[in-house]
């Protein structure tokens, strides 16, 4: 039986439908989890998708971080379950303190859509089949994607190997071109680029499948242990 992957849906989520479809394309079973629900429908992995949850009021991700569904995600993550935050989902996970750092408005203060190159920093369960130095092509589209951590935190992230991807050319002013980070335990990852929009070569790139495969692989591994 294929593994279940939950995709959260907040009022204002935009990329939830594409994430559900991408999960299905990857051979896993997608489950839509409504923001007001407090269980994950038996899912072994979670995607917090992109969009403008609650209209980005207050700060992007700030209100969503307090939703019942995020309570369930917190428990899932604490138990070692894999969680992937994409764009607004990354913002939600930093607001929920499940990931280090914050996302500020882009340095150029514009919403920016573009294909970006992402350099793999190290071998990781999140990036199956890749090695340090490989490049992935995945689009970004955001207004608030400028990743920031303090110099002290940055050192810790680097030392612990929590930086998975860096931009080849920094599109938003992120500190040290960081594009994707994990928590200290390594089971929660967030990035501004959209792997769910890069699953079909006809639409430009299929490199996003790598991250989604990483999510699914980890879910399978966790289920096998349990």
């Amino acid at each position, binding site marked *: 039986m294929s593994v279940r992957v939950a995709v959260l849906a907040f009022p204002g989520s935009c990329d939830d439908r594409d994430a559900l479809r991408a999960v299905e394309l990857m051979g896993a079973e997608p489950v839509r989890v409504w923001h007001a629900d407090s269980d994950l429908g038996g899912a072994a992995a979670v995607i917090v998708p992109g969009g403008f949850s609650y*209209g980005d009021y207050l700060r992007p991700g700030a209100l969503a971080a307090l939703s019942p569904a995020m309570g369930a995600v917190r428990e899932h993550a604490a138990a070692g379950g894999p969680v992937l935050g994409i764009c607004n989902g990354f913002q939600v996970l930093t607001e929920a303190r499940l990931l280090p750092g914050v996302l500020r408005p882009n340095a150029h203060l514009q919403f920016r859509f573009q294909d970006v190159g992402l350099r793999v920093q190290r071998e990781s369960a999140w990036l199956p089949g890749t090695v340090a130095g490989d490049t992935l092509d995945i689009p970004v589209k955001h207004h608030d994607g400028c990743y920031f951590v303090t110099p002290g935190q940055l050192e810790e992230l680097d030392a612990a190997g929590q930086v998975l991807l860096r931009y080849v050319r920094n599109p938003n002013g992120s500190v040290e071109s960081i594009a994707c980070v994990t928590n200290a335990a390594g089971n929660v990852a967030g990035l501004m680029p959209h792997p769910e929009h890069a699953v079909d070569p*006809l639409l430009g790139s299929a490199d996003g499948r790598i991250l989604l495969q990483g999510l699914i692989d980890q879910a399978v591994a966790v289920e096998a242990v349990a």
Partner: protein
Amino acid sequence: MSTIESTPSLHRSLGLTDAEFERISELLERAPNDFELAVFSLLWSEHCAYKHSRRLLAALPTTGERVLQGPGENAGVIDVGDGLAVALKVESHNHPSAVEPFQGAATGVGGILRDIFAMGARPIAILDSLRFGELDSERQRHLFARVVEGVGHYGNCVGVANVGGEVEFEPAYENNCLVNAMCVGVLPAGRLQSAGAAGSGNLLVLYGSKTGRDGIGGASVLASQGFEEGSEAKRPSVQIGDPFTGKKLIECTLELLDRGLIVSLQDLGAAGLASSTAEMASAGGVGLDVDLSAVPVREDGMEPFEIMISESQERMAAIVEPASWDAVAAVCRRWELDATVIGEVTETGRLRAFHSGELVGDIPVETLTERAPRYDVERERPARLVDAPSGAGEDPGTPPEAALRALLAAPGVASRRWVTRQYDQLVGAGTVVRPGGDAAVVRLTPSDRAIAVSLDGNGRRTWLDPRRGGMSAVCEAARNVACTGARPAAVTNCLNFANPEHAEVGYELAEAIGGMADACRALGLPVVSGNVSLYNEHGGRPIPPTPVVGVVGVLDHAGLAVRAAFREEGDVVLLAGAGASALDGSDYQKVVLGETAGRIPEPDLEAERALHAFLAEAAGRKLLRSAHDVGGGGLAVAVAESAMAGGIGVRVEEASDLFGEGDGRVVMSARRADVPALRKLSGPVPLKRIGTVGGGEIAVGPARIALAHAIDLYEGALPRIMEGGA
């Protein structure tokens, strides 16, 4: 019923003529009260009643095999096969954008989205057609930047991909920018919605945002006539958009439709509840009773007429069977949207408005809609129009290389990436061909079918010849769609003109519509929806006549889509079609010669149709490596654009007419081995081999430029103007 008779001459300040006021009194068989007069003034406005354009619009063909819904509903709908249908419409938001560019543009997008999902369709693509003055002033750069930001803000936040459009800069748009937004949505062919109210006793439900005093347009005059003397009454009349609520409204509406809970559906746009209720009752041939005191409002003390005509955004009206109401309310609650029963369907044929139990207005529905006045426009051929070409050849003083460089960096020609990179182009998992080429191609995921869509107009060329300009706008939009390999299927149009009460503008309007009608007929394209925006002028200076045409085409398989980019070294470059071209009205004439003069050539409509058919056949057999319309900047720019898009050079030897513009020509490339098959397929379409793909230079006849230099000029032009850097 409160029978305060209307203040004499109030109708004039509301924009109604004395004759129109008399007609209202005749139709009602009494004088209207102020509430009724406010409703009439909006429903009989040009925007709602098309009183100066409707008779002319009758010339446009509106039927065809694919047409499921022609003009008259919120949007047109065509069948695209496989049980799928596509809804399309373009609409203007010119004046609000000129006053407040960000909100004006944002609510323009919000409004066109509502028109699409009111048809039961999920919006999948937005296109925007924008016109400003030249970018040499701070004000024009500000307008341009803020409009783009507004278009992006709404579309990005609701998660609908922006896949294309156009931007034009001409001095005549300086004080009257044009902001036209188009939306396309997809629906199961069997689920087509109608606005027609039906079923006496069924409930009128208003859902979405609360109603405020924002966007009370022409009627703000009323407030200063003694209804209320508070300063609130002078609020700006530009609507404020809330895309977060807009997004919830889309999802909530689609869920209501999926569950079969709705009898009919109508968005609230211009003139708010007044026009929505009138249109629903009119389309259904019924009456509606509306209780205005039931409408959730943003502030206390709103007058009945204010509630009736408020243009507060993000609201929908639905007719619901009483048995479905609880389920409807539950879905709206889940989406955290107000839903309120504000009235019911009656058999009276009258629109009756109540407030606090009192009848405040009672109007026979047909008097607001079918019996609204229709006028013939006076027509007088403008003196500026000439019968002959200007005779201007290529300026011998300007070397072709210098001209090509100037054109690539001209704001009217240069890359639009500075605009499109501010838009989400990909959400929805369908964008196969992104903006920047001829037409965008959007797959109807999960189906493999795709649509191609383009939105085009050309004010400068239409200024020189309104009829040919109208024809050309249709030809160009359809040709752009055909370049992707899709078969053009339907048209939506937005007619931006100046004051139709001036005979010269009346002439332009009639001629441009006539030209569009000729082209649509010849190309077999029904016009299924549209919008007319008149009175676009400032300080007595009219805008150029600017018909903007959206075309949707159908592609059997998304994988067959052809792009504008050259692909491989050694591929053969061909010119398909031999349409007449001229420098008159061209970008060359504007940029290099510094004028707009003469007469544009007449499109050969039969040749155009054959060219489009050839493109679809060739794409279907995978014989094309690239195809790109010869448009602004002529052959030289078209060849350069294909080279830059592909990141590969090109050498074109056969180039006598570098910069002339006209219809009916496409630059294509093909594998050497496929050229004989292409020739065989081309039939009546002239197909001329003109060059070869390859190298690091763009060489079109005597005009030569290094590829990297061309890309820098072309891609860097707008960023340099707007931000002082790339």
